[in-house]
C-alpha cells in the first residue's frame, strides 16, 4: 500500500477534481461529476471538523498528562468543550445559556477591545512629519468623516467627497489589487496542476 503515499497520488487527488470543475465550466459537459465533486468537498469539511476535535483533544490531553507549561488552561478548555457538547444533546437550556450568554458576549467583548486599541493607534500614528503617514492620516480623517452619521451637520460636502474617494481612487486601487491577486492565483493554479507547487502537500 506504500504507493498510496506517493507524491503523484496526492497530486492526482487534487488535479482530477480541479480539472472536472474547470472542464465543466467551459463546456458544461461534466455537470453531474462537478456536482458530485463539490458535494464531496462539503462532506470532507464535516470530517475536517471531526479531525479538528480529535486533534484538539489529543493535544490538550497530552499537555495535561505531561503537566506541561500552563496545563490548567488545557483542563479549562477541555471542560468547556465537553460541557458545551453534552449540554447540546442533554440539556438544551444549558447550551443556550453557554452560547448566548457566555460565548456570544465574550466574543463581542473581545472584538470591542480592538476598538479601544484602534484609538490609541490613531494617537500614536499622529504627530509625524513623514509625508506618507500624513497622507494616511488624511485618508483616515476622510473615512471617519464619511462614515460619521452626523456628517451633514458639520459639512454637506463630506458625503459626495467620500463617495468620490470610494468610487474613484479606492475602486481604481482595488481593481489593480484584484487583477494582481487573480494573476497570482492563476499562476499558482498552473504551477499546482503541473506538479511544480508542492507546499499544499506539506513539502
Amino acid at each position, binding site marked *: 500500500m506504500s504507493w498510496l503515499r506517493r507524491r503523484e497520488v496526492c497530486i492526482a487527488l487534487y488535479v482530477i477534481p480541479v480539472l472536472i470543475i474547470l472542464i465543466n465550466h467551459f463546456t458544461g459537459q461534466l*455537470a453531474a461529476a*462537478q*456536482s458530485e465533486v*463539490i*458535494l464531496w*468537498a*462539503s462532506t*470532507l*469539511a*464535516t470530517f*475536517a*471538523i471531526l479531525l479538528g476535535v480529535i486533534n484538539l483533544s489529543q493535544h490538550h490531553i497530552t499537555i495535561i498528562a505531561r503537566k506541561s507549561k500552563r496545563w490548567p488552561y488545557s483542563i479549562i478548555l477541555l471542560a468547556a468543550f465537553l460541557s458545551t457538547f453534552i449540554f447540546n444533546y442533554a440539556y438544551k437550556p444549558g447550551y443556550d445559556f453557554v*452560547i*448566548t450568554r457566555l*460565548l*456570544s458576549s465574550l*466574543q*463581542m467583548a*473581545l*472584538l*470591542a477591545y480592538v*476598538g*479601544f486599541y*484602534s*484609538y*490609541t493607534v*490613531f*494617537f500614536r500614528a*499622529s*504627530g*509625524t*512629519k513623514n509625508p506618507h503617514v*500624513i497622507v494616511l*492620516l488624511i485618508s*483616515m*480623517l476622510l473615512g*471617519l*468623516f464619511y*462614515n*460619521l*452619521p*452626523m*456628517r*451633514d*451637520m458639520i459639512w454637506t460636502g463630506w*458625503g459626495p467627497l467620500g463617495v468620490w474617494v*470610494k*468610487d474613484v481612487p*479606492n*475602486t481604481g486601487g*482595488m*481593481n489593480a489589487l*484584484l487583477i494582481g491577486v487573480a494573476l497570482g492565483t492563476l499562476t499558482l493554479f498552473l504551477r499546482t496542476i503541473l506538479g511544480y507547487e508542492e507546499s499544499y502537500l506539506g513539502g
Partner: protein
Amino acid sequence: MSVKEWFARRENQDRTIFVLYFILIAYPMLSPMGLPIPIGEPTIESYELLENVPEGGVIVIVSDEGFPSWAELGPGEIAVYRHAFKKVREDDCKIVLLTSYVVDGQILTERCLSNVDLTGLEYGKHWVQLGYIPGYEAVLSAMMDDLKGIAPIDQFGTPTKDIPMLEDINSIDDYDYLYACTFTAMDVYIRQWGEKALARGVPIIINMLSGTVPLAMPYYRAGTMTSYLNSVTAGSGYEKLIGRPGMGAALMDAQSTAHLLGIAVILFAQGAFMIKLLSKPKEVAA
C-alpha cells in the same frame, strides 16, 4: 506632577483615550440624542430589490456572520429578516435560510427569527432552515446547482425532499433574491454566485463590515454585486426604511460620538506636533 507631565506618560495617554471612548459610547446608548441617520444609495437599492421580488418569489438568506460582528451586522440582518418575512405575508414569497461559514450563523439565525413576527406562518411552507452546512465556498457553489444535494436534511433533521416548500426549489433557476451576511471576505459570494446570478438577473446583496466595503466597490461598480449594506450604518437606515427602528438606530448616536473622538484624537496629536515643530524646528528635527 503637573497635568502635562502626567499626560506625557504613555500609559496615561492610553487610559485617557480608553475612558473617553468608553464614556462617549456608553452615554448615547443610555441617553439617546437622536442624531440624524443617513440612508445611503446602496441601502435604498437593497431595500427596493427585496421589495421588488415578485409574488411567490424565493428569497435565499445566507447568514454567515459570527458573534463578534453581531453589533455591526445584527441591525441590518434583523431588518432584512423582518422585510423578507413581510414579503412572505404580503406576496406569498418563500424563504430559504442557511449558514455556510461558521456555526455562529445558525445560532444568530435563530436570534433574528426571534425578532420577527412568525404568527400565522408555517415552517416548511413559508420558510425553511437548512442550518449550518460545513464547506463554505463549496456549499455556496453547490447551492446554485443542487440545494437538496448539499442539504439532504434541514436543521431539525427532516429530509429536505419531504419539505413541501422545497419541492420546486433546488437551484439558481428557482431563486429570485440572494442575500448574504458576512463578517469575512465578501468576494467569496461573488466568486460562487456572480456569474450564474448575473446571467439570470438574480440580485446579490451582501451585508458586510465597513472594513470590507472598499474591497466590494469594484464588484459593485461592475454590477456583479447588485447592492450592499454597509454594517450598522446601513442597518439603521434599513430599519428606517421598513419603519421599525431598533438596535441600529440606538447604536448610531454612539457611532457618531466615537467617530468624533477618532477625529479629535488625530487632529489633537498631529496639531500639537505641528505647533511644536513650528515653534522649535531644529530641536524636533534633531
